[in-house]
């Protein structure tokens, strides 16, 4: 077992100039064979491995990562966590995740800095109001904390918002989920990696998947840049690259991979103490513990794997930010970047087995995957271990695109999460 992290371990190590800290995780060469292999070392993949080992006592597991763990969308998103979704299926899925978030730092003995500073969604037109109220009522009946705020209450909760009735799209109210908030994205990947590793999971970085070997309608193993790995169960959690992996087994998915951009300002002293999202005017913002304003932009309309997007998207987002927060006009953009998000037609994820035996996919999270990380990992682990979905992810199967039984969250996803 790893040495426990605490203020005391810090003091102890201070005396040895921190020379004696253990590795957070090993750096093993792949074995010949595993009981299950997870493709993709992001938050979702590492969490999947962690729960396979923890809850389903599968210890002989590997996580294959093309680059470095947490280097994809896990390390590129704006870290918003909430569960105030419209449909029962989504609410169930995301609130399952939120409940795990609430105890995650202790569970992993790694501070993921989950801070429940609340997430507020603003309404700017009458249909917004209808949709958000519909969501608020649904959430309440689903046992999810969500309250409707009128314009004054919005102003009270976040005073720097421009709630003047004279702006182009005045704030007509909003819905607030207090349990929601943000977390430290890197820590989530590193915490799960450390936890999984300590249970024997092999985390293999700089190992790219080149092909998937099949025997008839079931999988046999994986061709990688570090050689062939035998396994009967493969869980694909490759986000933007899901279609690339699917192609290896001639599988087509209902996905499009698009650039999603985000940016941060220079750090300043605390100025906004919650997360505010606005679909109608395409703006959402929070402030990191370091003091940077964290701002999410939208996706581009075209497929791209470049991790770059067009400048217009960034300009449009900041335009909206200044409409709602004119005080930020002299703030400066420090850094902008892009991620590749895989988007489903109904803006809901896929956590499902496939017609190929032993091949499972966890994808289609679009712009909202980070918040689901623990729940997604837990449910995907369950699906892989039992070859059956958990009731919470039953509705998120691939077959829904054939039957037409979609979980349409466009309302909730109009901009991004």
């Amino acid at each position, binding site marked *: 077992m790893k040495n426990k992290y605490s203020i005391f371990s810090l003091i102890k190590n201070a005396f040895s*100039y921190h020379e004696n800290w253990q590795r957070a995780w090993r750096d093993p060469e792949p074995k010949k064979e595993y009981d299950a292999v997870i493709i993709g070392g992001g938050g979702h993949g590492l969490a999947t491995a962690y729960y396979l080992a923890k809850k389903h006592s599968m210890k002989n597991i590997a996580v294959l990562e093309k680059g470095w763990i947490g280097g994809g969308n896990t*390390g590129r998103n704006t870290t918003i966590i909430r569960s105030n979704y419209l449909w029962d299926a989504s609410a169930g899925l995301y609130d399952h995740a939120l409940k795990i978030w609430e105890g995650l730092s202790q569970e992993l003995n790694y501070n993921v*800095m989950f801070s429940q500073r609340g997430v507020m969604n603003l309404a700017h037109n009458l249909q917004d109001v209808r949709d958000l*109220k519909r969501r608020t009522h649904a959430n309440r009946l689903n046992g999810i904390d969500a309250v409707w705020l009128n314009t004054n209450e919005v102003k009270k909760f976040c005073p720097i918002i421009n709630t003047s009735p004279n702006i182009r*799209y005045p704030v007509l109210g909003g819905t607030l989920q207090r349990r929601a908030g943000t977390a430290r994205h890197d820590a989530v990947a590193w915490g799960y990696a450390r936890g999984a590793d300590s249970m024997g999971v092999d985390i293999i*970085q700089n190992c790219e998947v080149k092909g998937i070997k099949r025997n008839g309608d079931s999988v046999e193993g994986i061709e990688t840049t570090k050689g062939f790995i035998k396994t009967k169960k493969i869980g694909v959690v490759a986000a933007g690259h899901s279609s690339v992996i699917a192609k290896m087994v001639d599988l087509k998915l209902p996905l499009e991979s698009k650039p999603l951009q985000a940016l941060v300002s220079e750090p300043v002293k605390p100025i906004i103490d919650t997360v505010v999202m606005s679909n109608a005017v395409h703006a959402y913002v929070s402030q990191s513990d*370091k003091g940077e304003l964290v701002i999410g932009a939208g996706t581009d309309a075209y497929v791209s794997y470049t991790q770059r997007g067009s400048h217009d998207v960034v300009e449009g987002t900041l335009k*909206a930010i200044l409409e709602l927060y004119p*005080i930020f006009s002299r703030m400066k953009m420090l850094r902008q970047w892009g991620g590749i998000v895989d988007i489903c037609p109904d803006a809901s994820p896929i956590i499902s087995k496939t017609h190929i035996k032993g091949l499972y996919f966890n994808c289609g999270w679009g712009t909202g995957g980070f918040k689901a990380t623990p729940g997604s990992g837990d449910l995907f682990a369950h699906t892989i271990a039992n070859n059956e979905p958990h009731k919470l992810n039953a509705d998120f199967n691939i077959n829904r695109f*054939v039957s037409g039984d979609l979980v349409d969250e466009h309302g909730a996803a109009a901009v991004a999460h």
Partner: protein
Amino acid sequence: MSKNLRITNDKFIDQTSRISFKFDGKTLYGFKGDTLASALLANNIHLVGRSFKYHRPRGIMTCGSEEPNAIVQVGNDASMTEPNTRATEIELYEGLVASSQNCWPSVNFDVGAVNNFFSPLIPAAFYYKTFMWPASFWEKYEYFIRKSAGLGRSPTEPDKDFYDHRYLHCDVLVIGGGISGIIAAKTAAQNNLNTLLIDDKNKLGGTTLFQQNECFKINNTYSSEWLKKEIESLNLLQNLTIKTRTTLAAYHSYNYLLARENLTDHLSLSEKQNKIRQRLWKIRAKKVIISTGAMERPLIFNNNDRPGIILSSSIKKYIDYFGVKCGQKISLFTNNDSAYETAISLNKSGVTVNSVIDIRDKTDSLIVKQAEKLGIKIYWKHTVVNTSGYKRINSIDIMKLSDDGNEVVGKKFSEDCDCLGISGGWTPRVHLFTQSGGKLKFNDKDNVFLPDKSELEQISIGSCNGDFELDSIIKNSVESINEFLNINNNDYKNLEIVCSKELDKKNIWLLPSDKPLGKTKPFLDFQNDSTATDVKLALREGFKSIEHVKRYTTTGMGTDQGKLSNMHALGIIAETAGVKMGELGTTTFRPPYTPLTFGTIVGRNVGEFFDIIRKTPIHDWHVENKAEFENVGQWKRAWYYPKKNESMYEAVQRESKAARDSAGMLDASTLGKIDIQGSDASEFLNRVYTNAWSKLEIGKCRYGLMLNEDGMVYDDGVTTRLGENHYIMTTTTGGAANVLSKLEDYLQTEWPELDVYLTSVTDQYATVSICGPNSKKILSKVIPDLDLSDKEFPHMSFKNASIDNVKCRVMRISFTGEHSYEINIQSSFGKSVWEKCFEAGKEFNITPYGTETMHLLRAEKGFIITGQDTDGTMTPVDLQMDWIISKKKYDFIGKRSLYRSDTIRDDRKQLVGLITDDPKEVLEEGAQIVSETNKQPVEMLGHVTSSYFSPNLNKSIALAVVKNGKKLKGHKMFVPMKNKTINVTITDTVFLDKENKRLNA
């Protein structure tokens, strides 16, 4: 300002015009042309800020955009203050007010400095390892973490400044006006290429501009003299545009670049008034020449962060350009030749140079000999192992280096100094090149990353391309420019160039100390307080990749984006991990190159220009008549017309009643209108609507429902057959644009064989809708010669007519269930016709009504509003509109999807009516519907989509979608609210006039 720190130097700053400014409340003086940094140094102020984590005293370290320490808050006006501004980039102006950041109560006495004492307890990423107990306490810990983090203060009032954008298309863009950039720009422009040269400084010339050293001469004059003549010659070139104070912020693919031009930041407060502060240039260049130069590296050794420790080349600029001495007794510490240039400049200006500490073995390049000639003491193969002085360096400890350079040997000795110049060699500015997607290669000889492959039309020249010697800079630049622009320019062929050449290089990423590493503080990222020790800790803990180390230690994450720290971080990682630099790769430099003001990115599109406002031709009348407006897409639509102190509810009740009792009028001009012509027009409509069109008679109107290919309702509206091959289609206000492009898409890609032309005429016509029992009487007054008999002009038909000789189309269609007409007339007469109808209607109390009343009236009749009663998951069957799906038609958009296993289920959510037990109780739109009250969680069967109090039925009515609703008519249901539960009954969707008698009333 303390006299003895200024030497007379009128070349670049005007020492006759004194400028007063305030720093940390103290009034100080500088000269026109100073930066805040040079002025502070002239006032002998080095301590200007505190570091991010340990709150260590920090001073000015550079003279440019890579400055990590000297970042200040400018201004104290709540709306105009600006955080995190580099003192090295602020041009001094009369009335400038600046203050230190991240310190309390003051930069001299900062309580936060206790962190430095606790620093052994808080190594890199300590926060991941603690603050976990008790669980509920994180937010409390976090509160204090957040307070101590952050640097400057955000403004708290809206910005008063203006910002602007310009698009610019040029043949050649040259980035950087140093010696190679100037050669490039001149060459390009001389060859009739329209050329743009930008430089972030206020003067062209780069560092050569103030190079007055015997060792660097061109044609027997100082290189600076030669360059000045070149710069003067630029003014004669027609197609060359020069922009100074302009920083290239982002280099995107397709040679699309963003540059920020600073227009007023250097002006006095009064001069700034009503001018554009910054302009963002959106540049599209056929070819790009990057000549951004190189920046000097620091050296990494114990306590290398004290105020007074400055990059050697910056000390040179401060003395040679600004005429400012950074100290009286200056020591220099270097691993290369350039520190000797500084030594010579200082010596010339009468500053004592204690010594040059050089980690190399003795070398005798021209410049070194020159220094020796001046009697400057040099310690070969020595290193600085420590520095002293809390708020300003006062002495350094020096030791000899072992042969392998891994440790120090011999006896430690000290040297007093008030300033230490450090030089760790040079890093080419390849940031823009990598931003553009270019790949780098590592050069072991100089330990630098250099531009390698690029997809774009671009080259890098000069020291940003790895040329560091004056002669090779000129020679190679000219060659690459000629090849790149494919021209033959010989102007620079026969220059006579004298320059000192560096004969020997030695690079040690982390210099050894006599103390164990763990006990030392060799800073890498000065702003974020991450040290070489932190990087090694990260590696020990298994963080291999540079990105991991960067994120774990926050190295390179400061406002300088690691311009100074990245190379050493990479070096130390490579050394420790035992891999070659090249293989390790570099971190990606992301835009912007230097932080870019939000306002600049947004430009003038703020306030009233945040988004487009669309107005109908009748808009002014609505304004004159005190209408409240609703935003519908980008349109402003009249929402309701309150009288005196009427509430919205009262106004809507009045309007709704009037419309049914006598007459009402609505501005329907915003509805999308598409003119459809062509011999296949009818067939086209058959394919895009769910119902059949071929049999529609000329002169008749028909309601149509449009689906998405997935079978869900997409848009609806009335389409009228104007002639054999001529229709006019109306769409929803919000859907107009999308419907047209969707239809064009099908025409162009799926059905090119169809002879059909679509033309938007939304803005061509104003639409005045008159409804109510008296609408016929009113219209007959407006158009006397039109036969309005039901026989001649029945419901769902249209007539061509004219009003005062202006042609118009009159449709008899109804969205309210009342007898009603729509007059479509060319927009320019819309307002006039509206007024005419209003006049004619006065005797019938005709009442203008807005969108809210329209919604209420149609709800009484159970007519849907797409987007409100549908949400992209409703099929026509779900809406109980089976009647509109043609059974005969072979195909139409979305038909196949209606027969999927889920869409044929008969217990889907379906549109129904709701009546509350208490007729006064109006349901909330969006409220959920359940069948039992005593379960939690309870299955939600559906929700309320539209809800109003109907003045005409004198009771509350609502539309809703309910699971299996069709079959549940008459059933009791519940609407659970926060504090009560409302009892409702499911009904038919039509509440009023089921027999449609009123249509012909």
